[in-house]
């Protein structure tokens, strides 16, 4: 027994001390208090959390906004914390404690946070600006008729391709799923694969497949991804795997454009945020496409995600937090524009701001914005980890050819429906 204890305490000790060191590094490196000079007069300090945006300059911008806010509201200081790693898990865990942030962003808004009373309703912040937000941005944060967040940015996810590589192979940009499968296969060589969807071979593709065949994920609290159309499209994804046309196990995952920019693959599913990096690396040698329609009668699909600013309903400074969210994401349209186009590219959810975003007004960026307006769909608000895991696990089995697709999907629907019912009940 003694050996066990020694081993555990050794590990714990190492882990503990590493955590302390890491914590120190994180606090000194990532959380800065731009209001420090003013904080002698500041009565409240707001704790604001961001996930770690990958683009250079984003963190500095967030700090700049915080300083500007404190200048406008001298009694409120703002402490920005930049959170690397598994952001959702960290937010969820921290929300249970006193260290919870007052304002935080969440990707893919989850209704459950609102239903459990963890985030505050923000209807009164919108004012006349409400009609200026695009429909997805309003619908996405609406739970039982109230608005529980302010959409900061829309992130559009679409297919990038290298024009020159496709021309060399004599391929036109794919407009149907069959063409995509054929193109991926034709572009696969001995040393490289044709298409990168994600290191696990799935990425967003199961969601896109379902949408591209006219099916839905969850509709009005009913899990819909078990429909025959959805099943047909998901089973279709298997062809990409059987052809071995997919890049798997790359060192960075699909949201990073490295595989495309380093010429490892000629086609990659990625996001608008990566466009500046892609442009720098490839110049004009790239184009964008939606996920093609599965077959005639289906529709092309792009995913619209993005980040939403929320106020911790159980925080100590709810009013100050609301003031901050209103100031930054509703009043200061100049800063919203800066946030959307100066670092990575994102689409501003406010129509007036989007119209004034010059960098999104031409070339592939403009095409992407149009694709989003035409085919963009956000994930449903009930799409939390449990529902998504059930769906993805089933999709992984189906594309891997393990078992009967219909039965696998039926089980996943059961599991997901239980979770959705629990969320709503």
């Amino acid at each position: 027994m003694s050996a066990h204890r020694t081993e555990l305490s050794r590990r714990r000790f190492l882990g503990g001390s590493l955590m302390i060191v890491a914590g120190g590094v994180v606090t000194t490196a990532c959380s800065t208090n731009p209001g420090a000079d003013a904080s002698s007069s500041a009565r409240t300090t707001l704790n604001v959390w961001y996930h770690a945006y990958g683009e250079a300059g984003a963190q500095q911008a967030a700090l700049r906004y915080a300083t500007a806010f404190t200048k406008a509201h001298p009694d409120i200081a703002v402490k920005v914390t930049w959170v690397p790693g598994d952001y959702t898990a960290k937010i969820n865990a921290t929300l249970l404690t006193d260290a919870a942030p007052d304002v935080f962003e969440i990707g893919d808004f989850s209704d459950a946070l609102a239903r459990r009373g963890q985030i505050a309703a923000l209807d009164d912040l919108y004012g006349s600006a409400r009609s200026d937000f695009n429909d997805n941005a309003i619908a996405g944060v609406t739970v039982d008729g109230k608005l529980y967040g302010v959409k900061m940015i829309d992130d559009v996810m679409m297919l990038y391709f290298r024009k020159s590589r496709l021309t060399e192979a004599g391929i036109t940009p794919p407009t149907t799923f069959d063409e995509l499968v054929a193109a991926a296969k034709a572009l696969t060589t001995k040393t490289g694969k044709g298409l990168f969807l994600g290191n696990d071979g799935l990425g967003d593709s199961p969601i896109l497949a379902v949408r591209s065949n006219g099916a839905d994920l969850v509709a009005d609290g009913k899990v819909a991804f078990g429909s025959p159309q959805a099943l047909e499209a998901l089973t279709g994804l298997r062809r990409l795997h059987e052809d071995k046309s997919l890049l798997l196990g790359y060192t960075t995952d699909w949201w990073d454009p490295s595989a495309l920019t380093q010429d490892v693959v000629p086609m990659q599913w990625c996001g608008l945020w990566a466009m500046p990096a892609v442009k720098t690396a490839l110049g004009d040698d790239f184009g964008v496409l939606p996920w093609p329609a599965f077959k005639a009668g289906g529709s092309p699909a792009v995913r619209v995600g993005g980040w939403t600013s929320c106020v911790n309903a159980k925080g100590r400074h709810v009013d100050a937090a609301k003031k901050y969210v209103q100031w930054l994401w509703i009043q200061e349209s100049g800063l919203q524009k800066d946030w959307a186009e100066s670092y990575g590219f994102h689409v501003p959810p406010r129509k007036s701001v989007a119209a004034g975003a010059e960098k999104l007004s031409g070339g592939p960026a403009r095409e992407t914005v149009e694709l989003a307006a035409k085919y963009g769909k956000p994930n449903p608000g009930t799409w939390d980890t449990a529902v998504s895991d059930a769906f993805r696990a089933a999709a992984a089995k189906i594309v891997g050819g393990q078992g009967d697709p219909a039965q696998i999907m039926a089980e996943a629907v059961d599991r997901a429906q239980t979770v959705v019912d629990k969320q709503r009940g």
Partner: protein
Amino acid sequence: MVAAPHTGPPRTRRRSGPARPSGRGPARAGRRPRAGRSAWAAFALLTAPTLIGLGAFKYVAIGWSFLLSLSDARGTIAPGRWVGLDNYLTLLSDRTFRASLGQILLFTAFIVPVTFAASLGLALLVHRIRRGRAVLRTAFLIPAAVSYVAASLLWKMSLFNGLPTGIANTVAGWFGMEAVPWLQTTSPPLYWVVLVTLRLWLQVGFYMVLFLAGLQGIPQDLYEAAALDGAKGLRLLRSITLPMLRNTSVAVLMLLFIAAFQAFDEFYNLFNSGLSGTGAAPVQTPLVHLYNTAMGSQDYGLGSAGAFVLTALIVGVTLIQGRFTGFGRKEG
């Protein structure tokens, strides 16, 4: 540490034999109450920090978690909305959780004997050589100091990535094999190669050191006596080394079982794809499943219930193993 009892019987007898009757008995008896009191004070003083720490950070947490496992605790860690055994029933009827239990049993059944054999074999080899023993011992032990997370990243991104330029694929290429995505290939399940080699690399050195300690505790005269009787080679191993290592082996086996059931780090880090988590991973250990339940879906009641199911499983297996191998039984 574990091997101490081996050396016990002969030496203690020799040492304590003549000293006993020299009048120590009565003197000690007279002092006992006072010594007892101060001993108790010292005991309390020395153990209090640990006990208080254990109590506050372990037992209170365990008790709290048990209460949570009986409550509907979604998005909160306050027990109170009692639901009886609902969480346990939900969990046990959940196919994914049951599958994860099956997978961990399979994993344990494989990794425990392999790690055991590898570390015992290494210990025997390292024990035999005369020169450079310390160097080898250190070389094998060093990986035990590497964190699972760091090792997982190394395995995932450099050794076993899916590119033709990955180290494993390069080596396979020398033998004319095609580059494969190691972690993503499910038929045949190549990801097990990654998982098993990683765990072996990290663990074998540590258990080898435990075995080495055991080996060093075996009195040399036993081997000499056996050699006089003409025993050598395998016979020595079977009749002296292995029986004398019994206590060490039993302890190592138990540690291996517990470590295998608690597997999380490498499964999480190898299959985690960042934003989309480990939902589509080909294999999920119970702890990974529970982590996703509690930290992802914020269902702390269900997560706690799972923790207790897993604990029950570990305790059960340890007890069964103890019964079969006689852990803690006095040396015959």
